[in-house]
């Protein structure tokens, strides 16, 4: 079977255009994307003493729901925040490691916009500590949140 190159390019671009810009994993609902987009504000609200439950209720009021239109719960919100932060940390680590590779730096060809190479990702500082070394390993909190998220998924898996 032969491929139609023009059709392939057209279809691939169409699919690409419908994918989320963040490119992190598979998103089955809009909650993860909403959390990622609103993460700085969510953290700012938490730092000012607003409870997770209040933030979840406010997000639900804007249509960010879980499952079949059910209001977003505080525990679900914190699980997703932990997951998104862990993803961002991993991305930052990978980007740092990629930049540090001498072999890639020497071989890297000049890029054009058509090659669609991933844009450099700025390192995301940890939420609570400014020490740069802490980005190298997952924090206790991130590990616990990932475990809690895995548990929620297990309990809801049919």
């Amino acid at each position: 079977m032969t491929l139609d190159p023009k059709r392939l390019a057209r279809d691939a671009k169409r699919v690409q255009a419908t994918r989320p810009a963040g490119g992190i994993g598979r998103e089955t609902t809009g909650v993860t994307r909403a959390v990622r987009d609103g993460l700085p504000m969510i953290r700012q609200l938490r730092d000012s003493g607003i409870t997770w439950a209040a933030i979840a209720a406010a997000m639900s009021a804007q249509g960010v729901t879980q499952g079949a239109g059910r209001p977003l719960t505080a525990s679900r919100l914190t699980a997703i925040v932990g997951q998104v932060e862990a993803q961002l940390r991993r991305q930052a680590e990978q980007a740092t490691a990629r930049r540090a590779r001498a072999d890639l730096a020497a071989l890297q060809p000049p890029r054009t916009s058509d090659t669609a190479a991933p844009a450099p990702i700025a390192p995301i500082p940890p939420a609570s500590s400014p020490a740069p070394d802490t980005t190298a390993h997952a924090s206790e909190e991130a590990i616990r949140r990932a475990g809690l998220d895995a548990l929620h998924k297990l309990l809801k898996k049919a």
Partner: protein
Amino acid sequence: MPRILLVAQDKGGSGKTVLVRALAECLPTARLIEIEAGRRLVELDDRLSFFPVRAERGEIDRTGGQAARAEFDGVLNAMAAAEGPVIVDVGANTAGSLLPLIREAGGRYGRRGITFALLVVVTSEPGALANAPTLLDLAAPFAAARFAVENQVEGPVDPAALKALGKGVTLTRLERLSLDARANELLQKGGLRFIGEDLAGAEDNLITQFGFAEAGRIVEDLTRFRAKAMAATAPAAAWLEG
């Protein structure tokens, strides 16, 4: 009248956080304060205020000890702002420093109508066994009630040592339970909250995942463990409720 229950044991690994979780189950409306190096009670985020300890060594050096003196300011302020029952998870190696500060401020807290109690976890581990009476003594001048939970996770505690805790201390026991390995894994990931809120409704999912027999053990073991932990903290929860 806000009541604050301090849950303490300066030796790590004594099961203190399990008992904090059990208290949170007994009193679903209580707020929680966690004083730890890192957040542990992530499943209770909607009820929790977290205060990291301890002050950075570099900061202490730079400020000539001021940072060390101020490191509990956030905790002391949060307790002063209490409006209802509050459970405080005092992290390992922290109670010995925090309790004297509360004692010093005891009169000022009293004028705000705030009363304190202390719950200490006792295990047969020598460090935990030695620390328990020290903390109970530290709290005696300001605590309206004092509780001790004998956690038999490392075996039964010497009865003489328990008796030496004093007559004014309400003592309860958390027996060692053998949990199904998978149940223990879920417990480590989710604490006690999901057992009360989600487990019964998820039994069919667990059966699909692990089979009928193991799912049954998981549900039974976790439910039993939660009930035992809540029973061990019941007197303290009753005090907290007022």
